């Protein structure tokens, strides 16, 4: 993912990258702006900037901001789904959530689910990307295989995983039983959570793998060769060089995985466990759908969406602030 740089950045032996030549005397404001996502050297053409932004903003206005506003405003209303009667109830819907034990259970489930999912996904993808980058033969074949899950519609993926692990008829469940594990996601909340994490991670590993591999391939061979000449083995090179050059990608993926776990996993959960047993795998996003789509409780669903959005934005903001500070964009 990174653009090419100069081979003399490898300091040979100490195992760390260091900036080429004397440190640049960056004016304070530029250092700040680089942290805020702006290049040091910018163009001065404001009108052009607005013009470039316009198409995206217009589409967003019509098809995101306006509909979202209309959807979320229902958080402060008690409305009949057909739009016939609407009463303003202020913060009542949000207060009801605060008092609702099932809602807090969903919050807990979400935290557990998203953390487990992120760790599993990034861990497996990194391992696979390292391996795929290392081998010379069969790369294309392996890559194709690993990318396939992303092609499967989430609903289908869920059904297939549910089937494979079904305690009555699933082949993998059968294997687990023969190994002495009393696998039953219909009865044990822990098993059900494991199942949804597995099924969700399965789909997301491809995405992570693709970008990690792209990142690894973009590490300049010259640096790696220099390190090899100095005696660093493949694993050492990976850990010291590639990983630190991968930080922008890793940061991107952490945010994306996190957004995925928070927002895009409804279909998989619906197909594998339906939020059960007894609500054990009902995450916040699953509850939003359940309450909005099945129960037609638009007020509560909108209130929950707001909470979800605010939470996600807050956490992302924190990630930008603290993690991005560690990201090395320029070398």
């Amino acid at each position, binding site marked *: 993912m990174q*653009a090419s740089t100069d081979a003399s950045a490898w300091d040979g032996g100490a195992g760390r990258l260091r900036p080429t030549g004397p440190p640049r005397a960056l004016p304070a404001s530029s250092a700040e702006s680089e942290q805020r996502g702006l*290049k040091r050297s910018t163009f001065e053409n404001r009108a052009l*900037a607005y013009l470039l932004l316009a198409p995206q903003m217009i589409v967003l206005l*019509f*098809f995101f901001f306006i509909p979202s506003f209309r959807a979320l405003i229902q958080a402060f209303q008690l409305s009949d789904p057909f739009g016939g009667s609407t009463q303003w109830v202020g913060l009542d819907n949000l207060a009801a959530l605060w008092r609702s034990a099932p809602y807090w259970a969903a919050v807990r489930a979400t935290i557990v689910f998203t953390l487990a999912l992120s760790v599993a996904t990034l861990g497996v993808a990194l391992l696979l990307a390292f391996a795929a980058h290392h081998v010379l033969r069969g790369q294309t074949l392996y890559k194709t295989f690993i990318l396939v899950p*992303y092609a499967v519609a989430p609903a289908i993926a869920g059904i297939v995983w549910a089937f494979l692990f079904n305690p009555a008829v699933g*082949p993998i469940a059968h294997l687990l039983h023969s190994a002495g594990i009393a696998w039953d996601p219909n009865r044990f909340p822990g098993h059900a959570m494991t199942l949804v994490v597995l099924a969700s991670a399965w789909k997301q590993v*491809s995405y992570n793998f693709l970008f990690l591999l792209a990142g690894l391939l973009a590490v*300049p061979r010259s640096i790696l060769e220099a390190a090899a000449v100095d005696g660093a083995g493949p694993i050492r090179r990976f850990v010291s060089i590639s990983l630190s050059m991968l930080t922008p990608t890793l940061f991107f993926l952490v945010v994306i995985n996190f957004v995925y776990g928070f927002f895009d996993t409804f279909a998989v959960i619906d197909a594998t466990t339906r939020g059960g047993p007894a609500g054990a795998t009902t995450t916040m996003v699953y509850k939003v759908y359940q309450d909005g789509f099945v129960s037609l409780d638009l007020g509560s669903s909108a209130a929950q969406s707001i909470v979800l959005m605010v939470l996600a934005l807050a956490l992302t903001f924190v990630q930008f602030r603290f993690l991005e500070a560690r990201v090395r964009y320029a070398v």
Partner: protein
Amino acid sequence: MVERTPVLDAFAHLILIAGAALVCIPIYFVFVTGTLTQQQVLQVPMPWVPGDQFMANVATAWQKADFGRLFLNSLVVSAGIVVGKIALSLLAAFAVTYFRFPFRMTAFWLIFVSLMLPIEVRIVPTYEAAANAALPWNAIVDALDLQGLARTITGRELTLTLDWSLVNTYSGLILPLIASATATFLFRQFFLTVPDELSDAARVDGARPMQFFWLILLPLSRSNIVAMAIILFLWSWNQYLWPLLVTTEKSMSTAVIGLRHLMPSADAAPSWHVLMSATLLTLAPPVVVVVVAQRWFIKGLIDSGK
């Protein structure tokens, strides 16, 4: 790297094989189910070995759901979304990283926020927006009573409200799905890693921003663009809820909807074998895209990595 690391090589291969297997076992089962008959499918446990009904089931699935037309629609819609989204995002990311202007960060966060509310949660108002794209205009007309104004000025009854319906159209299928920021975020990350020397040099040479964009930035971004294109193509190919809502004509439906409709409802005879072979059919184009795009993707990386 000319070194010999046989142990690590073997280990790496092992990991990859395990990874590929893990990834493919579910697909393998989709395949096996698609080759069985109705009776065999209902057997518990299901056989691990494929049956012989592959072509028969594929033919049934193709006919039942009229897949020819559905595939075409899915292709058009996915292509539209890929092109549209990537184009908009490249421009927006360029603006937000290479230009200094008031409200720059606000714009970025506004764009970023669109990741935080998936379409399913705002589906009803989005449908209303697609059913009449001129709704905001109409709201303004009503709020300011522009029709009343027109009446007083011209003395005639004028209809200023518009009705622009995107239901059952390709634009209706494409536009609302373009409205989110994943690609912008990715390109922004990438642009931030492009060395400043490049844009410095461009400015010194008197290049205008768009020249820098076309001649330098875009070629550098090739591999990211291809990666994003793969991801977006697969994502839009698999969209279900929005296409379901915005189409009522069978001729405008997409492949995944056709697939879902084959899914047996609780009250009917389960035809999983037909469903699974339809799944394989629906999987085929994305897989082809992945395989083909992969070569470009590697090429792009090799070219730009020097």
